[in-house]
């Protein structure tokens, strides 16, 4: 099996935002701001009516985006728009499986490639069900990002050794959402995953504070920050959609993202 690399250098800051939240134009501005703030990879969430792996924050963001008429094809085309407006970092499409099925697996990859996407992550498609999509991903040169969870145990080796792009570690049991604390066993889990992985290992779910980022960079290659940023978008939404306040609101968002990424840019004690 091929390793499909992403051209990135750890440590990786991987922010997540939802396409079309609060509207598509704002999403493009937020992507530009995140790149400016030091994002290495952008994870672009496709809103879904029934997001089983997501907590209330991302559920609400999805509902806002769907109310605005966002769809999977439109979200992919939004990547094309981002490329035209100057977003250069790799973009990973985060989508549930059912919208991909309805678009058609091959059409999905073709459209994603055509619009400049760099990879795909499907949270409800476990390794065992992912065969046909992995093949298509290889054909179109788009890695299918795999996830491992604290319950993966003996599955880690199999999943990690076949991982493409980067490997996404779920920090703890549960759905996405800000967590006050992360499990004490997280370090051991991440070291175990790293031992088996040929690609960078990033951790996500619940990461919302610079202190957490500082701690995690010691044991893995990157962090995914989702709900904390989406919550910020939710707070700023009225201003993001007001023409005369948008620039200031985007700057506030960027500053918040930069504060989360900052610990990754400081010299590392054990690396």
């Amino acid at each position, binding site marked *: 099996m091929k390793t499909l690399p992403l051209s990135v250098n750890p440590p990786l800051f991987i922010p997540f935002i939802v396409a079309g939240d609060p509207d598509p134009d704002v999403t493009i501005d937020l992507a530009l701001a995140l790149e400016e703030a030091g994002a290495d990879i952008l994870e672009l969430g496709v809103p*879904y*009516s*029934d997001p*089983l*792996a997501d*907590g*209330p924050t991302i*559920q609400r963001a999805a509902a806002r985006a*769907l109310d605005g008429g966002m*769809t*999977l*094809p439109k979200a992919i085309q939004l990547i094309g728009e981002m490329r035209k407006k100057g977003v250069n970092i790799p973009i990973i499409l985060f989508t549930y*499986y*059912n*919208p*991909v*099925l*309805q*678009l058609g697996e091959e059409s999905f990859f073709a459209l994603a490639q055509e619009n400049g996407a760099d990879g795909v992550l499907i*949270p*409800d*498609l*476990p*390794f*065992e*069900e992912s065969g046909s999509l992995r093949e298509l991903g290889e054909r179109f040169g788009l890695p299918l990002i*795999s*996830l*491992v*969870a*604290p*319950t*993966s*145990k003996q*599955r880690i080796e199999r*999943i990690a050794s076949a991982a493409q792009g980067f490997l996404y570690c*779920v920090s703890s*049991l*549960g*759905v996405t959402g800000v967590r006050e604390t992360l499990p004490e066993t997280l370090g051991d889990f991440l070291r175990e995953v790293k031992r088996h992985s040929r690609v960078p290992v990033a951790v996500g779910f619940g990461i919302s504070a610079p202190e957490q980022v500082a701690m995690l960079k010691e044991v893995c290659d990157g962090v995914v920050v989702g709900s904390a940023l989406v919550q910020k978008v939710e707070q700023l939404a009225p201003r993001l959609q007001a023409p005369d306040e948008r620039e200031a609101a985007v700057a506030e968002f960027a500053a918040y993202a930069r504060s989360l990424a900052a610990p990754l840019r400081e010299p590392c004690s054990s690396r």
Partner: protein
Amino acid sequence: MMERVPNEYGRFGDFGGKFVPETLMLPLEEIEAELDKALADESFKQEYIRILQHYSGRPTPLTFAPNLTQRLGGAKIYLKREDLNHTGAHKINNAIGQALLAKRMGKKKLIAETGAGQHGVAAATVAAHFGMDCIVFMGEEDIKRQELNVFRMKLLGAEVVPVSSGNRTLKDATNEAIRYWVAHCDDHFYMIGSVVGPHPYPKMVREFQRVIGDEAKEQFLAREGKLPDVIVACVGGGSNAIGMFYPFLQDDVRLVGVEAAGKGIDTPHHAATITKGTKGVIHGAMTYLLQDEYGQILEPYSISAGLDYPGVGPEHAYLASIGRVCYESATDDEAVAAFQLLAQTEGIIPAIESAHAVAKAVELAREMPPDETVLICLSGRGDKDVQTMMRHLGAREGEDIATVR
């Protein structure tokens, strides 16, 4: 000869499988392994049957419906009386089976989702019986519609968690139950209420519901000396239907599943998933579902909270795709009329879910000769639906309920 389903990947033909977050893969594998051991363990089966007999009152009777038969002037109509189970519906069969499996796995906390509240009540009941904790997720809209069942669950000691996402009905309650399970899978057992969800749930629930069909087959043969010509059951997720149909799949019996047509299958207000849906993934399984062209799941509608679900069990999708079972639908009005007809001819008040099966059976029996037979799976009793009936009949006829005939 049909192929044996599900296969090792949990597939019924193209349907089924496990489309869940990675976190749940290990819990599902553990349940699968323990289920296979339990089903091969004679003492497990004996314990299950013993509890069904002494706690739930099985075997449930097979009742001939002479007045209804005479009224229609066609085939002889029989009822499999799942309404006479403890807690009033077939749901308890599955709840007892899964509670026994949870106990075997050392799990003492149950998670359940519920629509009308029947599965929630069954889960709360077995939790009390086995000394387990039980947390039931229920949509806020359903909580309003089924106040009595909510209180029943609380009386039984369960915690009922209102779900405010989406349309606040069964689909959303199921989402929330799965999310809670993802966070608590280390010490909780998810007791799903129908033949839906990721593998091995559709298989497990079928195995714990097939007692309906196994009993019915024996009873029918003893009574009529032959198998029924037609069997009819209602289909939401489809657990009573699979339980009834499964033992007859290899026989020369016409099987008819009845979905909820709500206000009509040509309106947007129905829950006729196989009749009108398309292939996709919902709650971890590939099946037919109601969705828009972009794969967003649509909100179903039915007068019956138990049939108000946008997906259907993957085995039903498979049986429809190979043509073994015929899936039809009945509207709210047809179900209400059948509800009244059965109540007034036989003195049996069916659940509004089961009334959908009665409606279709009435239609079929009328056209069949008197030497043929129709068996209806009467999946539950209708006490819980009396208020719904009052509202529906009052709204429709604009007259005093007491004079409704």
